[in-house]
């Protein structure tokens, strides 16, 4: 009985540390990333970009955004991801307005394309051990907030 109780306790404790360690979010496992996002209520469709690397189509704050994968070799073993969204504005945006936004808002990188349309991106290193699911969830929430604030900023 003592032995049985001990086995049980060990199993439980190992399960707890497994949650913190074994299932870290890594860019080399796009399926797991899409699955986590779905578990958290995101629409997350795993597909491929034009180069054959993984890409997840999703949305937040009322707009589509994408999870791009970088550092892949042959469409696998990726090391980084990028959260990205773009806005097709009737009159574009000014570089001054982008600069003002960038100097005041964390967790994003904004630029204008040739048509002065803004793109808002955030890069996450998910190599070598990766990050905890809890932290990844928070990063997605940060990006969602930034998408919401940015839409307000550009009157989307």
């Amino acid at each position, binding site marked *: 009985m*003592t*032995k049985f109780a001990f086995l049980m306790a060990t199993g439980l404790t190992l399960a707890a540390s497994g949650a913190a360690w074994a299932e870290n979010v890594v860019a080399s496992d796009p399926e797991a990333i899409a699955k986590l996002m779905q578990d958290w209520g995101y629409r997350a469709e795993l597909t491929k970009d034009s180069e054959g690397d993984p890409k997840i189509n999703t949305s937040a704050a009322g707009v589509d955004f994408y999870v791009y994968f970088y550092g892949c070799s042959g469409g696998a073993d990726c090391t980084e991801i990028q959260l990205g969204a773009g806005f097709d504005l009737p009159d574009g945006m000014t570089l001054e307005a982008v600069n003002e936004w960038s100097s005041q808002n964390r967790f994003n990188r904004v630029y204008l394309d040739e048509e002065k349309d803004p793109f808002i991106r955030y890069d996450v*290193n998910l190599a070598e*051990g*990766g990050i905890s699911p809890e932290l990844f969830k*928070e990063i997605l929430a940060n990006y969602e907030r930034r998408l919401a604030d940015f839409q307000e900023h550009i009157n989307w």
Partner: protein
Amino acid sequence: MTKFKLLLSSALVLGAFSGAALAQDALASDPEGLVALINEFGYEATLTTDNTGDPKIELSTGGDVGSEIFFYGCANNVDCEAIQFVAGFDLENGSTFEEMNSWNKNNRFAEAYLDDENDPFVEYDLDLNGGGISRDNFRSIVDGWAGTVGMFSGYIGFN
């Protein structure tokens, strides 16, 4: 004996697993730990405080360009949640919005912008809350930052 063996193997397994996961993770709530890791990675990091009393790390990643790590989401100067790598460059004639836009379009991770004197800044925000990130992942990010600082200073013609 069986029980003893079990105890022993449990302790070993738990030690190996949770030790690796917990003790070496990079967390914004542990500025001393971050400084130790960065120094271990071969850069020079010194812990100080900013003008609000929050932790701040002064960083040298090589060359003449220094950078700083600011802490965010702290409560009473401790228990911080996020960090920000920043390097600013005092240029005689500043830089342009076009140059910053081109950087932001063509380079991942760090974002570039100008201050009100048209001096360029480059920064990258890292959430280090909720379990943090692994030591090796943090090393990869710090190495990436060192590369960014070098590339950006060349890009804007500093030095």
